[in-house]
């Protein structure tokens, strides 16, 4: 490759990534040369500004055509743009939370937190744009490795250490399984480029390859379900959520999960959607029942076990498992507007989850654990925040008027419009949603009907207030005017360029 080709690439399309990379590198150097005792909040602000600038540059690229550079390993299509937007918004909100995270014990590695956070984000962003299995995998690992350390950032905290170790071990198992699956795909096609793979598989149909190819599908999908925290790879979630700090948890449950869906869609949909299959038009459709099966299992497991949790973080962990299940329903039903439905759901999920974690962060600040009783009498202590929390929980439960409802409705309709309709899956979704009311309402009961147990004043730092306000606005606005979000997707024409 000579210099001319190099210059001929439109490097501009990588601008958001470059900004994040630059800020991450700069932060790590600044952190090293900053006096030990200076507050690291400045670094956090810098990181926040970096994410914001990156978002602006992404908006600048919003209407650009599909561009692919570096020999098709990096492509900026509508899918990449829309999901990058989710990742950046989520990260910005989480960073705002992290700025004000003041646990009882001092965290020695604050600086590390910020730039590892950015590298994790970078990995996730790379995944959205990858056109190659290798870069996808590198992105995935960059995200994973960074988040392992983020979980362990409270170095002296036993639970955090335990959580991090469990996270590493399960993560490695997942990676192994994913790679195993991918290696089959590579073995069949002799290429790591997704476009080429899809082309090869679409043109050559061999009855004998179906079994191995399906095996590859199952392996890859199960391995990737680790990042989604979906069954059967959900079991790390509660332990890790409990051990990690609240900003990290909100990062894991929003940004990392979004990235998980990104890679699933990239690999599974682009590789298998066009592959012919014996019984139906595409292999993805033949194998959709397995996704549906896992989606159903995920919803059931997440919502039922959440019933038994008293620790709010664990409960939210199971609730996040359940939400992954809802989104998988959209994937399993493979409707026309699958991408929109998933995107919208993740956007709604972003607002309601980060909002809930923001409030949890302040409420649990002076407690050793996050037992649900810390919410007792919140309505008397800070009524507005109790109302905000109510909105988030209502949205998580999917009550009309909130973004969560619209998201669920989209997925629900998607399950019905396809032929044949997924009645079983849709009814599992409804039933488990009803089950979820029980544990969400448990928090309402604490907030509104229990006497105040802890009388110390709750301090609401400006950053947290900002996050809560943004999330409330997002949740309610998207619930009332969902088309605001869809207007952003308007230039993309239903992600028609995804498979091109």
């Amino acid at each position: 490759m000579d210099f001319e080709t190099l210059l001929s690439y439109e490097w501009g399309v990588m601008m958001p990534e470059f900004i994040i990379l630059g800020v991450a590198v700069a932060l790590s150097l600044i952190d090293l040369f900053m006096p030990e005792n200076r507050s690291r909040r400045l670094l956090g602000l810098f990181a926040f500004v970096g994410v914001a600038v990156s978002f602006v540059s992404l908006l600048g690229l919003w209407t650009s055509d599909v561009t692919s550079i570096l020999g098709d390993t990096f492509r900026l299509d509508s899918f990449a743009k829309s999901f990058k937007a989710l990742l950046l918004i989520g990260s910005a909100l989480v960073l705002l939370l992290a700025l004000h995270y003041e646990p009882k014990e001092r965290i020695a590695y604050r600086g590390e937190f910020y730039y590892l956070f950015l590298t994790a984000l970078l990995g996730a962003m790379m995944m959205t744009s990858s056109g190659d299995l290798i870069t996808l995998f590198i992105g995935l690992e960059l995200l994973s490795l960074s988040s392992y350390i983020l979980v362990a950032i409270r170095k002296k905290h036993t639970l955090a250490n335990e959580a991090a170790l469990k996270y590493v071990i399960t993560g490695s198992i997942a990676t192994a399984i994913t790679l195993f699956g991918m290696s089959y795909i590579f073995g069949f096609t002799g290429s790591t480029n997704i476009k080429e793979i899809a082309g090869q598989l679409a043109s050559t149909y061999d009855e004998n390859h179906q079994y191995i190819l399906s095996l590859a599908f199952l392996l890859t999908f199960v391995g990737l379900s680790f990042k989604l925290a979906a069954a059967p790879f959900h079991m790390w979630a509660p332990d890790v959520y409990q051990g990690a700090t609240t900003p990290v948890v909100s990062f894991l449950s929003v940004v990392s999960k979004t990235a998980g869906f990104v890679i699933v869609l990239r690999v599974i949909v682009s590789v298998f959607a066009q592959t012919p299959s014996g019984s139906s038009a595409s292999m993805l459709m033949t194998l959709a029942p397995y996704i549906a099966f896992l989606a159903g299992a995920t919803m059931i497991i997440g919502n039922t076990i959440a019933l038994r949790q008293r620790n709010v973080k664990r409960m939210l962990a199971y609730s996040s498992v359940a939400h992954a299940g809802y989104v998988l329903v959209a994937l399993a039903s493979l409707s026309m507007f699958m991408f929109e439905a998933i995107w919208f759901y993740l956007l709604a999920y972003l607002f309601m989850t980060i909002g809930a974690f923001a409030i949890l962060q302040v409420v649990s600040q002076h407690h050793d654990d996050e037992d649900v009783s810390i919410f007792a009498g919140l309505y008397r202590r800070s009524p507005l925040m109790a109302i905000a929390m109510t909105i988030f929980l209502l949205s998580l439960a999917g009550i009309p008027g909130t973004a969560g409802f619209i998201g669920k409705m989209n997925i629900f309709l998607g399950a019905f419009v396809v032929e044949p309709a997924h009645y079983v899956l849709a009814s599992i979704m409804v039933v488990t949603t009803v089950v979820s009311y029980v544990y969400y309402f448990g928090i309402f009961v604490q907030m509104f009907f229990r006497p105040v147990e802890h009388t110390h004043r709750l301090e609401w730092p400006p950053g947290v207030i900002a996050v809560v306000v943004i999330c409330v606005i997002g949740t309610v606005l998207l619930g009332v005017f969902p088309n605001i979000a869809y207007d952003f997707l308007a230039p993309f024409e239903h992600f028609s360029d995804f498979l091109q």
Partner: protein
Amino acid sequence: MNVYVNSYVVVFVFLCLGILLPIVALTAGRFLRPHAPNAAKQTTYESGLDPFHDSRVQFNVRYYIFALLFVIFDVETVFLYPWAVAFEKLGAFALIEMLIFVVMLLIGLVYAWKKKVLKWM
């Protein structure tokens, strides 16, 4: 299809051989050797010396960190060497890539240095 299956038959044969060989060797040895243990025979073999403490020894954790750093730079060399050999062919792009790679590692080194990894303390 036959070729496909046949090539796996070879793998299978080797797998069986691989499993059988140690089993057969150890079992055969067990039957052939005499069994007459005494105290001197059961001590740990340390190059002929009498063992003088527990076989588990604590090493300073710094060895590991040095070892890690060593591995990183070792890998760097492993990457640099083939690149240097084929430098003419690879051109400017590879040069830039290598520079990025080296700079990243350099930042890592600075990190290690600032975190006082390089000091034996």
